[in-house]
Each structure stands twice: as structure tokens, then as C-alpha cells.
């Protein structure tokens, strides 16, 4: 059995949360992982108080990149901007709760990279 395809990862991959395009996004960005052809678009709606009121993603890619986008957007909803900006790769790995090999790190971190460029 492949460790990285945990129930939670596969569940987020097949039934992603926050998938689609939100209305009135204040920030958006797209990033690609050219090696594997993954891509993620992120839409963020930031409130006046710099809180992430709403966040969503579109895109295609492997189970890891898509599940990571689903879980990360879920995690960030309602959080302050500063917290989103400070997220580290380690926090993503903790969120995913699986061992990420160096080859898959780019997949796992694609949504984080996209969120950071949206907020940059």
C-alpha cells in the first residue's frame, strides 16, 4: 500500500473543498509546476480587516497537489492575512499528514506558492 495515498488525501482529491471561482476576489494568482503539468489558480477575498473571508482554487494535477490545495484553502479560511503569509512548507506537510518525498515536494507546495504570489 502506498503510504501517501491516505484516506484523507484521496478524499480531498475526489471531493475537493473550495473548488471553483469565488465572486469578488481581491487577490488571485496562477502557478504551474512545469515538470508534471500541474497548475493551480487561487482566488482570495480579503476583508478590510485583512482577514481571509473567502478562498478558492481551480486547476488540475496529481492527488497531492489537488488535495493540498483543498486542505490549505480550508485551513486558511477566516485566518488573518499575516498568518497566511507566514505559512511554512513544514506546516503543509503537517496538514497533509503524509511523508512527502523530495520528488513530490513541488506538488505538495504548489498551492502554498500560488497563495503567496496572490498575496505578494
Amino acid at each position, binding site marked *: *500500500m*502506498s503510504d*501517501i*495515498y491516505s*484516506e484523507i488525501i*484521496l478524499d480531498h482529491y475526489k471531493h475537493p473543498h473550495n473548488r471553483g471561482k469565488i465572486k469578488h476576489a481581491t487577490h488571485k494568482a496562477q502557478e504551474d509546476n*512545469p*515538470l*508534471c*503539468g*500541474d*497548475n493551480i489558480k487561487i482566488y482570495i477575498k480579503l476583508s478590510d480587516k485583512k482577514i481571509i473571508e473567502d478562498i478558492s482554487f481551480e486547476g*488540475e*494535477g*496529481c*492527488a*497531492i497537489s489537488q488535495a493540498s490545495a483543498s486542505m490549505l484553502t480550508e485551513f486558511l479560511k477566516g485566518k488573518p492575512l499575516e498568518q497566511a503569509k507566514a505559512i511554512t512548507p513544514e506546516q503543509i506537510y503537517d496538514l497533509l499528514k503524509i511523508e512527502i518525498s523530495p520528488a*513530490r515536494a513541488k*506538488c505538495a507546495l504548489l498551492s502554498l506558492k500560488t497563495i503567496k504570489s496572490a498575496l505578494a
Partner: protein
Amino acid sequence: MPILDPKKIKELFPIFSKEENKNLVYLDNASTTQRPKVVIDALKNFYETYNSNIHRGIYDLSEKATKMYEDTREYTAKFINAKSSEEIIFTKNTTESINLLAYTLSDDMLQKGDRIITTSLEHHANFVPWQTMAKKKGFILSVVPVKDDYTLDMDKFEELIKEQNVKLVCISAMSNVTGTIPDIKTIIKRAHEVGALVMVDGAQSIAHEHTDVQEMDCDFFVFSSHKMFGPFGVGIVYGKKELLDKLPPFLYGGDMIKSVKETCTLFNDTPWKFEAGTPSVADVVAFKKAMEFIEELGIENIKNCEMNLAKKAVEMLETHKQVKIIKPKNLDESGPVISFVIEDIHPHDIAEVFNKENIAIRAGHHCNQPLMSHLGIPATARLSFSIYNTEEDIERVELALKKLFEIFAK
């Protein structure tokens, strides 16, 4: 015709007898093949017995090394049936070989407004250099598309070749994604009829198809040692002597000169004028053993053996209705490379699960993004066969596929 026994052949490749690789199924041969012991021994032997720089030393050791290096040039010429060894240039890989041609042809033979034809089957190595030169120098780059059956659209080629000022056609003899083998003979014939030169990228075909550059009548042919059981670090350019003579050098420096004065330099003759600096001598020397290895097995035997496996792999994949095979239906029009996609499972996830089963396959765009976008997919998973692969490997692939379906059915 003797039938090759892949199990016996596998024993000739030390990597498969290492404890950590005991169960390895290696199906990424289109990326790089494994090396037989004869090639590894030749590298060791060179460094232990003949190590010295070439074309310089007056002493015996250097003369021996020079002879071994030049013997490989001679052997390479025979291997692809070039007219003479002076038509063989050593580079570091196919990409450098194509860049050598892209730069020198663009400098001297092509002019603003000239057309270059390439195809959407090309590896980025045979696409990006031409696209870049076209932008830099004002050439017009046309791309022959693939049809829905993954063969080249020859009607479109015919249309493009009839355009004004077509001066160069750059085409792969075998696709690294679909395995497609274009009708090179017709393409070369038509190109020559309109006065265009033809550069054939043989990186994928060289280990699977008999290559005769004189019969093919291509003007240039490029390939790499590492995709044909030889060392990394050796690329080859074949060019018709009269054309190479007309081209300027590519890189400048030592070894590519006859004489240097403060005000001017007289360059060396073909092919040495294209080989500036110290080449990867040991790798070139050992490359000869790789060609000998292929000739001992017989390229036709190799081809039969690999295509037999490719056919069985296609038949196996076809029994799984979720799998879509990205390869010409008629296997005679393609080599032992099989790309496939599975609905709702990304190729990366396929390769990951295969890896857990000790099966090495490639997943990605295979350095051919234009083809991927043409096919409307981000990536494929790819199996590519060589002579040490066995029917058991295909059974292992099927088991891995079943595991994959199990995981993603949850």
C-alpha cells in the same frame, strides 16, 4: 535469426544484480538505458591504463588515448554508415549536437525570411533551439501537427514544404512520447526536391532501428550515447562532409585551431574544428563498446525483442478500459515507447504507485509541452522498453495497475 534471452542479457548489466535493485523493473529506457559491464569496464580500463589528454601529447600514453578516441569516431561512422569518420563530431549530448547545428546553420546558411519546418512530435531539444534562432534571426518556424492517431500529418507537411524559402527540416526519427516513427524517407526526398536540408534527431531511434545515413540521405543526424547503453556525456553529430566544411566552428578555444596569431586564427579541419577543448575522452572511448554490444546482439534482434514486448504491453493495457493509450495503433509505425493516461488519475500518481512496486516509469510532459497541449493533456505516464525487459515486467506492471485502481477506488 537467434532469439535473444532477456534474462541472460539482464545478467550483462551489473545494476540489476545489486541487492538494492533486486526487484527493479526499469521501464524508463527512453530517458536513459542501463550500461552493460563491457561499457563500465572500458571506462575503468581507460582511466586505469590509458588516462591522458588527446591530440596533444608526444608521449605514448597520449598517442594511445588519441588513437582510442579516433577509433571510436571511425567505429561510429561505420555504425551509422557515414562515408567517412570526418563526418562524425563528438559533443556532450543530443541537445548540444542540435545547438551546434542551430547556431552554425543560423550563422552561415540561413537568412532572414527562410523557413524551418519542425513537428509537434519533437523533444524540446529539437524545438526550442530552432524557435529561439527563428526569433533571433527572423526565420519562420512551421510546425507539422500530429493527427488523432498520433501519426504525423503528412498532408500538412506537404502543404508546408511547398511554401517559399523552406531551407531546413528538423525531424525526429522516433517520438519519445508516442514512439511514432514518421515517414522520414518521404520527408527527406520532398525536402531535397525543394532544396531544403534535413536534420534528423535520432536520439530515440538509434537503439531500436537500423541507421544508415547514406541510404536515408539525411544531411545531419544527431544522437546520444547514453540512450544506447553507452556512457553519459557523449553526443554525436553526423553531417555530410561538404556541408560541415562550409559551417563555421561552434565553440572556440583549444584543439579546434591550426594556428593562432595575435590578430587571427586558422581553424582546424572538419570535424576537429567543432570540438573545442578537452572532450569527455573516456566516455567516448567506452562508447565504442556500447556500439559493439549492439552489433553483437544485432539491431534487428533487439528490435524484434522489444517490439514483441511493446505489443504484449499494449494488449495488456487494452484490457483495462480506464487506460487510454497514446500511441499509433499500427505498431509498425512506432517504437517500443508507450504513453498512456488514466481518467481521473494523474500520471504522477501512476508513477508514484508504480515506484512503490519497484517499477521505474516516467511521468510528465516528456520535454514536449507543445504536443501535450495539442493532445489536451497535461502529462502522460510512459513505459519504454529495452533488451533486458521481460514478460514478467509486463505482469508486474499489470499488478501495479491493479493496485493503483484499488487505491483510487477508495
